[in-house]
């Protein structure tokens, strides 16, 4: 067999593996991301003014893809570039499985009244990081929403 033909077959195999990996990676990221976004985080949740104020964030991301995915979720309350409260969790979701993420921001009542009251410039920041294909493909999404009462 000619050297060019052997090389041609090798190139075809690399291209095939790339396309399969790319498609499987995208599919995994899409599936995990779709289930990691809650109906309403922070701003959309009814907050009870107890002392301390506890703000929950729970999602159950499901990986319907064919590759394992590592999901990092960070939920924070930020005001004037200062982090008032933050909580983070990292889970590895094997293919065809579901994980549970439960985060709670605990803020003293006085701080909550300052930053979650009307006219406050505080913001909810939700960071989602998904890596798959043996950490070779990365997806990151940062959602920032107003934190004060509107």
């Amino acid at each position, binding site marked *: 067999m000619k*050297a060019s033909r052997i*090389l041609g077959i090798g190139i075809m195999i690399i291209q095939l593996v790339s396309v399969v990996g*790319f498609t499987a990676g995208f599919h995994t990221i899409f599936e995990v991301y779709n289930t990691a976004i809650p109906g309403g985080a922070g701003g959309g949740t009814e907050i009870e003014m107890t002392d301390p104020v506890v703000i929950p964030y729970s999602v159950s991301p499901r990986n319907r893809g064919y590759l394992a995915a590592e999901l990092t979720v960070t939920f924070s309350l930020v005001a004037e570039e200062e982090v008032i409260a933050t909580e983070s969790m990292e889970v590895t979701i094997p293919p065809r499985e579901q994980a549970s993420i439960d985060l709670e921001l605990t803020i003293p009542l006085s701080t909550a009244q300052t930053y979650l009251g009307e006219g406050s410039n505080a913001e909810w920041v939700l960071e989602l990081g998904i890596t798959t294909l043996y950490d070779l493909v990365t*997806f*990151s*999404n940062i*959602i920032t929403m107003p934190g004060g009462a509107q």
Partner: protein
Amino acid sequence: MISSKKIRPVFSAMITLILFVVVPYLLPDYIPPHINALIVESGIDLDWFLNQLMVVGAVTAAITLVKGLAGKTSPVWLLASLAQNVSSLVFTLILLGAGNIMSLGVVEFTMYVENATNYIMMNMRVLVYLSIEVVALSMIRSYLVWREARVEAAPPGRIPA
């Protein structure tokens, strides 16, 4: 009568032209308005992105034609083949960078939906590295094909220069 050896490269160039020039040219008319609004919000310059694809597509079609019409033993065939590999890499870089060739497979954009700011980043750099590897191997293969064709075309007992 035109020989099939000349029809084939013209046909290949036409297909390349349709896929990479005509389709991107017509694409904006077929994008639904809500998807178009999302693209505008994300800050991706669709016109610039498609223009780049069309330019590379037109260049690739021209190279395909030249390569097809040149004999496999000709240096023009080798140069066209190498240029075709480079243009395919440029095409991949444009595609993976959503129009920003210098981003090397890292796509970033920000969308504003109601009160929320949505920043999205996708890192596909590994695919850029794989593409570079494939193009490098393809260039070596082009040289081997050209060299083998010259050896086959040389009279018995003669080693081509």
